[in-house]
């Protein structure tokens, strides 16, 4: 059997379950096993995946919170299964439920990017890549036909689309033309490689002799995007040969967890000083010098900017309804952002 079919399906099951149950763990499944059975029943039959579109499943099997609401209001014939079969099973747009109605027509487009980077001990960029997603949250009546275009689509290296995206317009003009599913979904994901710089720098210095290791880490903003960088964190695993560590910082808090993970949460970088972490590590008695150096994992969040530089040009709706609200947002997070020492 195709391996990815299995993996993708399991991921989908877990997505749908956590969507329905608001989380996924053993207890939640135990509490809601009826819904889980019902969902699995619809999602797979005789080993072959059937309906996995969350929109359609939601029409067949109502999520639990609605059930309880319905139960409290109506007695007797209430159930968490809709009486009618979803129309979309027969329609040619399988991801969209038939004819939703909204008083306020809204559509939100979010660019969410994650930056993966590896920086070696000289501060040189070994690898830097952005993995981004275009998330759309649409609440539109009828069968809306949207087109979304970017100001600079040429920077994208590889793209993957939700099934609703028509391929030809993208191929010829790099325009996303689609009829969206209702609610929130991932319209497209993309990859941008060969980025030249990172928003922040981390300079670790480790020097070890005579059974000790001095650590000094500096963190700062490299080039200003005009947006504040939030929730900066730095984590690293202390090598197992370290007996004790004494680390202090001038900004933020430092915690050393039980599994020898050291985490330093900085938050925002203050204007007047450069955050630094310094201290000494005491090595095991027979060791003279440290041979294994930790890797620093950096986390940060920048609101309002997509670091890949991707920009949305415009979003159009054919047969626009009278009142339409369009919203755009961008966000960049650190993905696998590593600094070696």
């Amino acid at each position, binding site marked *: 059997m195709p*391996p990815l079919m299995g993996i993708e399906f399991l991921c989908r099951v877990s997505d749908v379950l956590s969507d329905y149950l608001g989380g996924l763990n053993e207890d939640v499944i135990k509490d809601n096993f009826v819904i889980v*059975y019902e969902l699995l029943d619809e999602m797979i039959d005789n080993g072959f995946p059937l309906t996995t579109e969350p929109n359609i499943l939601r029409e067949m099997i109502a999520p639990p919170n609605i059930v309880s609401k319905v139960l409290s209001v109506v007695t007797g014939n209430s159930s968490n299964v809709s009486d009618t079969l979803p129309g979309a099973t027969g329609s040619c747009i399988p991801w969209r439920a038939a004819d939703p109605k909204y008083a306020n027509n809204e559509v939100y487009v979010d660019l969410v990017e994650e930056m993966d980077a590896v920086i070696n001990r000289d501060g040189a960029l070994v690898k830097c890549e952005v993995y981004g997603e275009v998330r759309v949250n649409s609440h539109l009546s009828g069968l809306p036909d949207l087109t979304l275009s970017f100001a600079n689509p040429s920077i994208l290296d590889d793209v993957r689309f939700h099934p609703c995206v028509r391929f030809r317009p993208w*191929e010829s003009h790099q325009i996303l033309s689609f009829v969206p599913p209702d609610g929130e979904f991932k319209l497209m994901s993309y990859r941008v490689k060969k980025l030249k710089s990172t928003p922040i720098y981390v300079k670790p210095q480790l020097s070890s002799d005579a059974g000790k290791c001095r650590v000094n880490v500096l963190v700062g903003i490299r080039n200003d995007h005009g947006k504040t960088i939030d929730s900066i964190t730095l984590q690293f695993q202390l090598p197992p040969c370290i007996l004790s560590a004494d680390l202090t910082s001038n900004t933020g808090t430092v915690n050393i967890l039980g599994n020898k993970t050291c985490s330093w949460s900085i938050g925002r970088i203050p204007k007047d000083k450069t955050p630094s972490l310094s201290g000494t590590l005491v090595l095991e008695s027979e060791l003279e010098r440290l041979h294994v150096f930790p890797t620093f994992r950096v986390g940060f969040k920048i609101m309002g900017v997509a670091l890949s530089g991707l920009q949305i040009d415009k979003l159009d709706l054919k047969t626009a309804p009278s009142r339409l609200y369009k919203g755009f947002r961008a966000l960049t997070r650190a993905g696998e952002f590593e600094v070696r020492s």
Partner: protein
Amino acid sequence: MAPPAQSQRSQSPSQPSGKSEVSDLKLQLRQLAGSRAPGVDDSKRELFKKVISYMTIGIDVSSLFGEMVMCSATSDIVLKKMCYLYVGNYAKVNPDLALLTINFLQRDCHDEDPMIRGLALRSLCSLRVANLVEYLVGPLGSGLKDSNSYVRTVAVVGVLKLYHISASTCVDADFPSTLKHLMLNDPDTQIVANCLSALEEIWSAEASTSEEAAREREALISKPFIYYLLNRIKEFSEWAQCLVLELVTKYVPSDSSEIFDIMNLLEDRLQHANGAVVLATVKVFLQLTLSMTDVHQQVYERIKAPLLTLVSSGSPEQSYAVLSHLHLLVMRAPYVFSSDYKHFYCQYNEPSYVKRLKLEMLTAVANESNTYEIVTELCEYAANVDIPIARESIRAVGKIALQQYDVNAIVDRLLQFLEMEKDYVTAEALVLVKDLLRKYPQWSHDCIAVVGNISSKNVQEPKAKAALIWMLGEYSQDMQDAPYILESLVENWDEEHSAEVRLHLLTAVMKCFFKRPPETQSALGAALAAGIGDFHQDVHDRALFYYRILRYNVSVAERVVNPPKQAVSVFADTQSSEIKDRIFDEFNSLSVLYQKSSYMFTDKEHRGPLEFADELGNLSIGEAAHNVISSQRVEENDKDLLLTTAEKEETRGSSNNGSVYAVPYDSSTSVFASQTQIESAISNPTTAGHSQHASFGIDDLLGLGMPAVPDVASPPQLKLNTKAALDPNAFQQKWRQLPVALSQELSLSPQAVASLTVPQALLRHMQSHSIHCIASGGQSPNFKFFFFAQKYEEPSNYLVECIINTTSAKAQVKIKADDQRTSQAFSSLFELALSKFGTP
């Protein structure tokens, strides 16, 4: 999905103990069964929930069957669903009780709500009780004609379930043709897809017994049908698309424009959000263009970006699966990914199974231009906290060093590892330095200087210790204190637990002795004494052998133990190219993940006729039907995994288009051949080619033992039929039946080896000597040929298997003959013909 079977029930103290609760529930259910009071559904629902939850945690609630069925007379769908679940779970173990449910399920099958109709039908088909099938036919028939697509979808899968319970009932009711009609005409693509998967399964299973089914199965990959599916592919759900794409890979387009049409149509599937669709499309592209080399290369370029995206996005499991596929591709086309090596850099918190594959990828994509960067990166991992990965990365550095010509920088790095004072790093590096020296003896001076500084006390791992000892022996003339180190090692003989190390120590002391006799003499004596007294058989034998050969003649001993060595040019590959090709044919299946061809993990008994099948696979001859091991080659078909074993055999039986193949295996005549094959297959299934040499060795020994006088009865001159003809099937059959008459090793002239760059040349040459080739294969340096010849004006055949290794210029020949008496004469003819090969 199914709750655990009752047998596995766990009754931990925290769980309800069962009995009393169950009888309590029984009582309550009884009260509710007849009641029609408002709100009764709610209380029923609570009770049902309890029952199901007991069932889920493994308490046997089957005693409630009757009550549950009584309560199921309701219009509430949730209640019904829970009831169906309950019934489905217990019907199999209580077939008699299941009969009770048939009635209400059948009634529900005519409910006005399509949802209930569908659910009831699904539950009905899921009962899987053989004596109830008669009740299934009616509801299924009407379900297939239902006006609602949901019910039809369920009914189609129901037909397949029915087929698995009782194939004859399903076929007698003519369901397959109904499904076919639906598949070609239904507007709902989900139904088309379900029909397709059901029919593929049914017809594959039926094809061995029914010609019509075989024909229908062929029709599935006919042009009109494939086009019908492809034109609608966008309407299919993503899972159904995978199914269709899998079918398309089996389709053979008539010309290149058709190939391009299909690829253009499917190109956007590479951008699909679902990785399974992307990978299935990649397989279609690769298979379609196999015959078109240029386009095949372009395909590699085209699929590169989507595959790399799949690696870096998504779950680690997905990365692992895709990386396995990339690894397969990179073996076939390393240069394609050589510029993207950065994608295979390991991230700190990736799981180690992903990291390991990435290291393999880095090794595979390394070439002259990127070696420096890759090795630098790998050296970073050597200091990794994750010790297994650190080891792997050092090994990867070594592998790259063995691949490359410019090893200067790499050797320096390895020597740095030796000085890192981490025992595992030193250990790995030692093993690598040993391998490097075997390939590049010119580096010995630099390496030995560093190796000499390593104290053998710091090296504990057997492999590393063995490597160090090997170097001490091999380069004892360059290392000042080699004899003394060895001596101290010999003194601690009893503390050395690994036989491998002791063996190496013996040999090293011997080598050292030949180079520096006075200093080593005492160590040698001690080593031999300790070795002869060793409890390990191999060590004991080797020590005894050394002792005797030394007593016999010291210079002979030196020639045996320490001959001048040639640098190793190529280290043996662990996987034969045949297996790699096979795995490639099974792209997008678990074979790639396991790095094994599917027959190796789907079919445990499949061992004996396997190699033979490999050789002649290209002739599409059916499989050996061994009388004991009824195993046959697994058709390269992913769905095999989904089928049960019994069906699998039928499937495979059908794979050769009804040709007569199932000849009973005559074990009495071919015990020897099959045994050696089995042995070699068992001892090392992945290197069948190599291990077979071993079995030939046995043949050789036996051959020597027999009188080498040619049979007097044989005619002095054997004439061969120049226009001999033999059907491949007949050949295979004979090969299986006949015992090995002769097996020998022939030497080839250098000219012959040179001419073998084109294997066809040998075929033509042999044909001019009336020896015809029926199958050939292999890649330099190993070629394999099957020849046959016929006696002039007599229907007597000679069959030859000939394995030629061009590096050693040797040919292993195995001859089988209808007429055993003339095999010697034929052998000399064959030898003569082969010896003339290459001479103008």
